C-alpha cells in the first residue's frame, strides 16, 4: 500500500505547513508538491525526490527537509517526518497506511541561516504532532 501525505494541525487550528505553502510563489509551491508526490510513490529507504528530499541530522535527526531555491535565491524549506508503525500502531494514530507528515516550512534569504530558536520551534510542532493519537491533521 502506498504512503499518504498529511499536514499537522496545531491545537489552535492552524495548519503551519499549509500556511507556509500558501505564502510561497506558485512555482515553489508546485515544486514542493512534485517532491512530496515522488517520495510518497517511492518512500525511503529508496532514493526519491530528485535530490531535493534530504534527511536532517543532529538535533533535527528524524526530520526530512525539502530544500528549494526560489526567486531572488531565497531558500525555502519544508519540514516533514515519516509516520510509520505496524498495523496496530498505525490504527492507533488514525491511519490505515504510513504517512509523510508535513509539519511546517520556513524561508530565509540566501546566505542567512536559520537560528537554533527557529529549529526548536519546528521540533516543538513535531512533538505536538507525535504525542497525539489519533494524530491531529488537516482534513
Amino acid at each position, binding site marked *: 500500500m502506498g504512503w499518504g501525505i498529511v499536514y499537522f494541525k496545531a491545537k489552535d487550528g492552524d495548519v503551519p505547513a499549509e500556511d507556509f505553502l500558501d505564502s510561497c510563489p506558485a512555482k515553489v509551491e508546485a515544486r514542493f508538491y*512534485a517532491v512530496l508526490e515522488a517520495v510518497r510513490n517511492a518512500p525511503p529507504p529508496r532514493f526519491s525526490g*530528485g535530490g531535493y528530499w534530504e534527511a536532517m541530522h543532529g538535533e533535527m535527526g528524524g526530520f526530512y527537509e525539502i530544500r528549494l531555491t526560489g526567486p531572488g535565491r531565497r531558500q525555502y524549506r519544508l519540514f516533514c517526518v515519516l509516520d510509520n508503525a505496524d498495523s496496530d500502531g498505525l490504527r492507533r494514530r488514525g491511519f490505515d497506511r504510513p504517512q509523510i507528515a508535513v509539519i511546517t516550512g520556513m524561508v530565509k534569504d540566501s546566505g542567512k541561516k536559520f537560528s537554533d530558536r527557529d529549529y526548536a520551534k519546528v521540533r516543538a510542532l513535531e512533538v505536538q504532532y507525535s504525542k497525539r493519537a489519533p494524530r491531529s491533521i488537516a482534513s
Partner: protein
Amino acid sequence: MPTTLDTTHHDRRLARRLKDDPEFRAEFERQRREIAQIDSIVRQLDELREQAGMSKAELARAIGKAPSSIRRFFTADVNPELKTVAAVADVLGAEVAIVSRGAAPAKGAGGKRPRREAAAAKAILVSRVDV
C-alpha cells in the same frame, strides 16, 4: 475502536491547485519529469550495483569515497552530485547519456535553430544499462 482519520486533504488540495492555476500545473508537471529522471538514474545505478554483486562499501572504495557517502547517495539523504553519478556509473560499466526527447528541431533561416524549437528539444538524462 480507534477512528480512521480522513487523510485525503493533501490530494484534494493538490487537485484543486492543478485545476485552478495553469502556472502551478506547468511547473508541477515539469518538476515531476525532472525528479523522475534523477530518481531513475540513481535507482538504475543501485540495481546495477546489486547485479554486479558489489556492496556499497566496495563501490565506495572503488571510487575513493567514504562508505557512508555512498549509502547516503543511494537513499536520498543528500543531493547527488553529477560527478559522483558519473564515477559510480563508470565503476559499474555504465555511463550517463543525454538523449533528445523527440525529433531534432528544424533549423531556421541562416542555419540557426529558433529558440522556442531548441527549448522544445530539451534533452533528458538516461542511464545506459549495457554493462
